[in-house]
């Protein structure tokens, strides 16, 4: 599969899965916590790979940043879940995210050099856009607990900054 098509497929899996809630009922707080943890973990895994295998120094640094930032967000999410006695619950969306992440990593492992960098960055753009959409359309509106809602809102600017950063890398790699 073409790398961009693959990135879009993974991202649209998330959009489809989250929009499924529109018909089938909203995710509860435990499921939302599970989705947040899965979303961050997926990007940590891809970032670790980029840290090791990217050829472009800026892409490598971006991968490292994704590991650091998403680890930090997850730490806050897990701490809040513990405080609220909320056990992150699996859901169709969380599973779809994990599968999309595993497919992405498997694909990246077959690539080298500039092809790896491009595929990784393309996927990062699509992934961050999909997570922002999920936050805005599904996760924030459905979060019942005020602290959980606040944490989701507080994590949003990081996803936006990462998206802009990834887009900037994408345009530089394209040259």
């Amino acid at each position, binding site marked *: 599969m073409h790398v961009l098509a693959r990135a879009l497929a993974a991202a649209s899996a998330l959009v489809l899965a989250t929009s499924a809630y529109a018909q089938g009922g909203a995710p509860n707080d435990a499921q939302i916590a599970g989705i947040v943890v899965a979303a961050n973990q997926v990007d940590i895994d891809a970032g670790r790979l980029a840290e090791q295998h990217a050829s472009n120094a800026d892409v490598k640094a971006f991968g490292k*940043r994704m590991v*650091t*930032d998403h680890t*930090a*967000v997850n730490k*806050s999410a897990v701490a809040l879940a513990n405080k609220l006695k909320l056990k992150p619950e699996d859901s169709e969306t969380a599973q779809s995210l994990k599968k999309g992440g595993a497919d992405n990593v498997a694909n990246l492992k077959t690539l080298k050099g500039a092809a790896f960098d491009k595929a990784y960055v393309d996927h990062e753009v699509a992934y961050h856009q999909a997570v922002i959409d999920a936050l805005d359309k599904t996760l924030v509106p459905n979060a019942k607990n005020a602290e959980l809602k606040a944490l989701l809102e*507080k*994590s949003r*600017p*990081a996803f*936006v*900054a990462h998206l*802009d*950063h990834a887009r*900037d890398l994408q345009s530089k790699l394209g040259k």
Partner: protein
Amino acid sequence: MNAVARIVGGLLVTFASLGGANAAGPAASAPPSKAGTHTVLIENLRFVPETLEIRRGDTVVWENRDLVPHTATAEGRFDSGNIAPKASWRHRFDAAGTLAVVCRYHPTMKAQVVVR
């Protein structure tokens, strides 16, 4: 010394001290007598305020209120290194000028400090 000589002498001393002050340059260029401390919040992946005006000798404290780590960096001038969430870092500005400040981790974060 008679009274007139005493008064003239006093005036001369006053003149000399005024002249001395003028020779040292206008008062505006002297370091401020009382240095201030300013806070820049790092929140929602932005520096707040994005433009900060301060005086020479003032100190700026960058306070990270985000979930993720940041830096406050003016290339070639200063670099905070890692500022962890809930941590802060301070720097004193002794020279006038406008400094562009970025977060090395997040290139979308830009600000400036104007030192007068």
